[in-house]
């Protein structure tokens, strides 16, 4: 247990030790003021790390949210004589609320998001600078009162350093906990591969918004501390240039590491001080530095350190494996004659191209359903249309008696239709077990609240998720690779991890998009056994799209054939492969003259 505490809170303990030493030994006011600044920027960098390094969104408005917190706190204490503690908390809340305005953008890709947040920061600067007597305009507001925290008046440099450090430590505690449970896993999954995360029932937009709001909340708090320290607020520290400085801190420290953000925050603040004499050259140096770093060390300083460490063991806290019955977890009712999935006259057009043309199909519970068709027949479009990647142009898809046509992917995933992809989409920065654990996301409930509390329920859920993941990894035969990073896996193993991950979300229907493509003979044989086992032991309905007729005729209960977007056959496998139209589609028409 003690070892795991060190592993878990190592960063926190390290930071605590460094800060305590500094607070004890440093006496010069100049140094203390610089250190306080570094701590405040570190808070900012850590909060951006949550948005950028964890969720993968490049926000260029972080200094803007920092400013919203700063101005809120300044205005409330200066104009309205609020108490510091109240103003401080309100600053965070207001910044978080302001971030809600941008939250619908969370769905956009990172470049759009970066540009819009840049514009948002410029808007904020204009508003701060033209707020009249409320904000003091470009001249700013002097004479912001010192904090009074239940009688503790913070008015010396040392006390400010202690206050800022305390907040940083609380923040470290906060972010370490928040990123440990389900939410943290989902953050990283989204950063690594959005579509795969969505297919497992994770609501991408909502999860990203959570990360963004939490990050902005902490930025607001940091802003509040800063204005009270300088007793002055003006628009300059909140321009988009400063946002870029914060991005630099995160990038320099290394994406996805809170300790990296700590290094970056302190590093850049001291570098700024060092380059104070040549302020004109500073942005040039930083700019070139960023560009060079992106070419040679895209993973930052922390990435360089990490290279020499064994990567696999540290990211996951090992739980003891519960003795868990996989059968209870995965089993579906064996009730074969019930229709589980139905398509009515589904048509999908891309502009003028008709990819699916009036397809009717019925999948019964507990069967292995095979879909074949020559290249370009519309098989992948078919899966995409059912699982919510595409909206059908006309027609209806019904799953378990519910109309799901046009519903988003995570909704369909949560209902129990989970898929794998033609080209495996794994979360490459995570281990095999973690990948599979992401699959349990819809089954376990812990979120911000429980992750902060880390009570019995939280540990129980995490332990359960871990045990399920381990059992599934064993089921697909990868137990010796369980703690390997997915980026290093071989092709055939990647496919198996994907299947295990899909199984973790308790699928009712499992869609396999060309699972055998690129596998060797032995691997194909194993895959066949696995599929049969999933059906016979657990009663999972399996929908499989394949080219390998040999494999399909062996395992399928039912088969359908697509050609040019039309269904040309549907029935028992042996009947389907003998159908003259199917043979013609696969082997071509015999020339009419000879016929």
């Amino acid at each position, binding site marked *: 247990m003690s070892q795991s505490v060190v592993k878990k809170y190592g960063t926190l303990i390290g930071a605590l030790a460094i800060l305590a030493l500094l607070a004890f030994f440093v006496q010069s006011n100049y140094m203390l003021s610089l250190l306080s600044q570094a701590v405040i920027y570190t808070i900012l960098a850590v909060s951006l790390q949550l948005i950028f390094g964890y969720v993968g969104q490049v926000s260029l408005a972080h200094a803007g949210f920092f400013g919203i917190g700063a101005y809120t706190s300044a205005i409330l204490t200066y104009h309205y004589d609020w108490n510091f503690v109240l103003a401080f908390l309100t600053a965070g809340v207001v910044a978080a609320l302001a971030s809600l305005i941008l939250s619908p953008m969370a769905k956009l*890709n990172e*470049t759009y998001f970066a540009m819009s947040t840049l514009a948002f920061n*410029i*808007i904020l600067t*204009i508003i701060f600078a033209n707020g009249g007597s409320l904000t003091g305009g470009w001249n700013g507001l002097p004479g912001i009162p010192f904090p009074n925290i239940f009688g503790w008046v913070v008015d010396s440099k040392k006390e400010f350093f202690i206050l800022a450090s305390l907040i940083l430590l609380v923040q470290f505690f906060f972010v370490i906990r928040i990123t440990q449970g389900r939410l943290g896993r989902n953050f990283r999954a989204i950063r690594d591969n959005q579509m795969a995360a969505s297919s497992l029932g994770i609501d991408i937009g909502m999860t990203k918004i959570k990360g963004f709001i939490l990050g902005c909340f902490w930025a607001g708090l940091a802003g509040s501390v800063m204005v009270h320290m300088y007793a002055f607020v003006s628009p300059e520290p909140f321009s988009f240039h400063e946002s870029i400085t914060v991005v630099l801190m995160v990038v320099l420290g290394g994406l996805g590491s809170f300790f990296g953000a700590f290094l970056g925050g302190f590093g850049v603040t001291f570098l700024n001080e060092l380059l104070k004499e040549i302020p004109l050259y500073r942005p040039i140096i930083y700019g070139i530095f960023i*560009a060079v770093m*992106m070419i040679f060390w895209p993973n930052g300083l922390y990435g360089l350190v990490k290279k020499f460490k064994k990567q696999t063991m540290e990211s996951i806290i090992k739980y003891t494996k519960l003795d868990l019955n996989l059968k209870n977890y995965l089993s579906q009712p064996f009730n074969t004659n019930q229709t589980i999935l139905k398509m009515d006259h589904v048509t999908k057009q891309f502009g003028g191209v008709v990819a699916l043309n009036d397809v009717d199909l019925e999948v019964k519970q507990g069967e292995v359903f095979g879909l074949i068709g020559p290249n370009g027949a519309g098989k992948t479009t078919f899966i995409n249309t059912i699982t919510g*990647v595409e909206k059908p142009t006309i027609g209806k898809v019904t799953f378990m008696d519910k109309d799901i046509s046009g519903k988003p992917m995570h909704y369909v995933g949560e209902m129990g239709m989970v898929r794998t992809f033609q080209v495996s989409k794994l979360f490459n920065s995570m281990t095999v077990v973690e990948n599979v654990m992401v699959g349990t996301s819809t089954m376990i409930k812990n979120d911000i609240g429980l992750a902060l509390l880390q009570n019995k329920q939280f540990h129980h859920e995490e332990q359960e998720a871990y045990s399920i993941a381990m059992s599934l990894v064993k089921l697909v035969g990868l137990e010796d690779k369980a703690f390997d990073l997915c980026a290093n896996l071989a092709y055939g193993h990647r496919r198996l991890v994907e299947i295990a991950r899909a199984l973790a979300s308790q699928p009712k229907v499992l869609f396999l998009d060309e699972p055998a493509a690129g596998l060797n003979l032995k691997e194909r044989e194993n895959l066949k056994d696995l599929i049969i086992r999933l059906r016979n032991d657990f009663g999972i309905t399996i929908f499989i799209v394949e080219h390998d007729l040999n494999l399909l005729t062996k395992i399928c209960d039912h088969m359908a054939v697509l050609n040019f977007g039309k269904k040309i056959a549907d029935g028992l496998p042996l009947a389907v492969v003998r159908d003259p139209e199917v043979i013609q589609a696969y082997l071509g028409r015999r020339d009419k003259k000879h016929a």
Partner: protein
Amino acid sequence: MYLDILVSGLAVGCIYSLIAMSFSLIFRSSGVLNIGTGEFVMIGGLVGYSVISSFSANYYVSIILAMLIAGIVGYLANTLIFHPIQKRGGQDVHVLIASIGILISLPQLGALIWGAEPLSYPNNISQGQVNIGVTQISGMSFLVIVLSIIVMVVFQIFFRYTRLGQAMRAIADDRIMSQLLGINNHKYIAFIFLIAGGLTGVAGVLLGPIYYASYDMGTIGVKAFAAAVVGGFGNVTGAVIGGILLGLIEAFGGTMISSQFRDLILYVILIAVMLFRPTGILGIKQRRDTA
């Protein structure tokens, strides 16, 4: 009065269009979104100023030279930064961050060379007034519109009727397919950066006489990006329409609200479009391939 606003709005709009075209061209062909594109405009504007004031050269000569130099800067940005990142397996995020590096370093470089004071172009470029009915219209705005249209038409001809231009369009359409057909992508993408940089250079020299030239004029890039997005990002015709539309909105909207908040208009539009219709007006609805 309204005619005057219309023409000056059109003039600024044409400049936005040129920059938006540069954004779209680069994005379509190489997948790079260069946040620092606005800084190439700054380079163009300042180079143009130097050419006119130091060598007392003709305005048109300064346009050509600014185009050339901004083009070279664009070319270098690709060969020195973007291409190496992509070649080493960097993702979009890394390219994006590197372009942030351009965004912060180039303005300071401009300030070191040309100083921090705004520089006014000599006002003898086009002093004349054009009379339409009873209203008088600034000759400069007219000149800007005419020159922008000429540049756009020349580029259209280039893209439609020359082999080089056609290859570039092919790359913009489908990078992988064109590579399979034997087009040397890297060579052409480098060329596109050259041309797109040239477009921004022209925009800078056209913008100079309307406002002024200074090291911090690069923020116009964000407004031009708004234009590209409104027109549908990646769509070159859309970029032209979006630019003109936003120029007009800014000109007419600016008469209604106080000058401090005038700049807000386009930024707010950018955010609104991103919130409600990120595909823009002419956005290409791309097929989302799963593979």
